[in-house]
């Protein structure tokens, strides 16, 4: 308890930063659930591939510990684009391979969940076996740096030093903290605006409420589904970049835990509700930090799972309630 009070501001602000990353990934879960009423279990891998894209960009440009600040920032921007593209690509792949065949067959939702679970494991393993995959295609020589240590942690070769910027309470908020929090909020607002104002956004909302009527109004549901996955992927790619800036290390199975936490955030805020994803993420990030201060850092992950179970039991509609999709009994 004492620890919590002593470090309150630090815990809270870093919690908000962590939570912002959860929020961005949560957007993917919440959108897909809102529009398709599916839990995209494989979204965690969408995120994970984005993190590797960031690392690989730095490898590609031979970055190292002595890379200058300006170069690092430039590389980060390139990495951001790469990550968003990669994540979006993986998301579309998942849509095409794991979901689309089922949507045409009108299968029950549980079957789609199983397909997603299969896709999740397959994708994670492909990353974890990339050295063997590369060997199979006989490119493991030139790509050695990228594919070696397939099951090990992979870190950014540069270290990004956080600069203290402003003091809140007794904690010096760092540049990274601010970057992460502000980026997440900006992206969320951009997405929200898109969904509310644009034609595609209206299409998304229509399809989520009633696919048949939407089709009668000339909305191409299949296209909307693809857009939904795509947007979720883009957000995850951004999250991946921020994650690599803040945490710096990734692994082929890094998606799972983060995925569950992001899903918890989505449910916490109200699944299908975009703003809910942001609120849920931030709340979860802070709760995790406070929780680990109270009961020990080793229990950090448990906080998320317990919170997940508790919300689903007592308030399954989340803090802000469901919105994008209609409530299904």
């Amino acid at each position: 308890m004492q620890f919590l009070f002593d470090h309150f501001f630090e815990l809270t602000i870093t919690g908000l930063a962590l939570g912002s990353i959860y929020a961005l990934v949560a957007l993917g879960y919440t959108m897909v659930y809102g529009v398709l009423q599916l839990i995209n279990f494989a979204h965690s891998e969408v995120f994970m591939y984005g993190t590797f894209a960031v690392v690989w960009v730095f490898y590609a440009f031979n970055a190292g510990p002595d890379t200058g600040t300006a170069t690092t920032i430039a590389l980060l921007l390139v990495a951001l684009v790469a990550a968003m593209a990669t994540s979006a690509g993986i998301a579309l792949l998942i849509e095409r391979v794991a979901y689309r065949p089922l949507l045409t067959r009108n299968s029950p939702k549980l079957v789609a969940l199983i397909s997603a679970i299969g896709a999740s494991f397959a994708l994670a393993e492909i990353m974890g076996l990339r050295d063997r995959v590369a060997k199979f295609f006989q490119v493991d020589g030139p790509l050695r740096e990228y594919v070696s240590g397939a099951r090990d942690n992979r870190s950014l070769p540069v270290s990004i030093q956080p600069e203290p910027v402003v003091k809140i309470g007794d904690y010096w908020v760092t540049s990274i903290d601010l970057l992460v929090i502000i980026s997440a909020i900006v992206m969320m607002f951009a997405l929200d605006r898109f969904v509310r104002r644009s034609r595609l956004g209206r299409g998304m909302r229509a399809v989520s409420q009633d696919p048949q009527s939407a089709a009668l109004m000339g909305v191409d549901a299949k296209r909307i589904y693809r857009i939904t996955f795509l947007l979720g992927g883009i957000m995850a790619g951004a999250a991946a970049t921020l994650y690599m800036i803040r945490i710096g290390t990734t692994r082929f199975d890094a998606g799972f835990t983060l995925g569950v936490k992001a899903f918890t955030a989505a449910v916490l805020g109200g699944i299908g509700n975009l703003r809910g994803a942001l609120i849920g993420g931030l709340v979860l990030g802070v709760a995790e930090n406070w929780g680990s201060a109270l009961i020990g850092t080793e229990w950090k992950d448990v906080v998320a799972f317990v919170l997940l179970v508790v919300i689903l039991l007592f308030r399954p509609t989340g803090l802000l309630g469901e919105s994008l999709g209609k409530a299904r009994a």
Partner: protein
Amino acid sequence: MSAVKATLGRVPRPHFKVPDSRRGKIILGILAAAFFYALPLLNIPIITTPDSDFGGVLFTVAIYAIVALGLNIVVGYAGLLDLGYVGFYAIGAYTVAVLTSAHGSLPYFLVVPIAVVLAMISGVLLGAPTLRVRGDYLAIVTLGFGEIIRLTAVNSDWLGGARGISKVPPPTSIPPETTDGLFQIPHLVWDGAIPSIDYDTTTKFLKFGVLDAVPYYWLALTVVIIVLFADTLIKDSRVGRAWEATREDEDAAEIMGVPTFRYKLLAFAMGAFVGGLAGSLFAARQGFVSPQSFQLLLSMLFVAAVVVGGQGNRWGVIIGAALVVYLPERFRGFADFRVLIFGMALMLLAIYRPQGILPPRRTRRAKAIEAELEALEEGVDEEQPELEHRPNA
């Protein structure tokens, strides 16, 4: 019957038919059971796993079969998607470990009932609040539960933390403290297609030791048979019907007077019971229990076994369990690709054959009707003796 047809010059049907008569079924069952008990001793070349102890593999298959049967009650009969079944398995295993090694030294066969009851209680505790939530959320909640159990084990010192609990003693042998058991059974060894008895490799009946997995396998196989019987008895009663009705259309079932919540909870409790039972067998053979053995992947494998087998089909899920364990062991070269293949198989199955590998479930009575129809097709221009054997409509 078929003999009569054959002597009349008709070509007998080439496929295998499960005998209709009760006696036929019992004889078949006994033969099959005998075969499975003898299997690790027979060492049949094509079937035996080259790089790993066949007895050990069979043991794992048996354990997974028990799990699959238990999960089949929850997922297959009652229609509740449980992604955290590994939690019950872990509770069974850890209870055995705690009471026989870490914090006690009770005899194994006394601890097993305790483990099973604890698992069942946890099933009820988990089910009571969660069974009210809707389908896909239930899946996630149960997943959360499984992980909470694992993480609790990792972080609790009295459960051994990340290293777990070791030195779990084997079950008491018959007779106790024996080195050679009551008698020894040699294994078979094959030279091409010619078997010969290998007197050097023997299984001691009934010594639960560290090296030979076969007695454990026999124990597990016995449990499988018992669970199968219990499953059949329960399924063919109002309990089984209530589960199926709940799965098919919960609201309609409720309106037909089925207290669906109670039955869902019952399914959960029974599933947990069986899961805990499997876990306690696992702990005995393994000799140690650590959180590594209870990852989420295992829950998914269990679910895969049930889905592959075709939900609600007790034989199918056993086959599913066998496939999930046996294939990676048999084709060890692909061991590293196990999870990848598993993931892709799940996807393919979900897309192309969600009802499972075996054909959809048919009841005994529905089969009887089919038999009747077949008899009609075959026996149109034959003597009337068929008539008196047709079951009453």
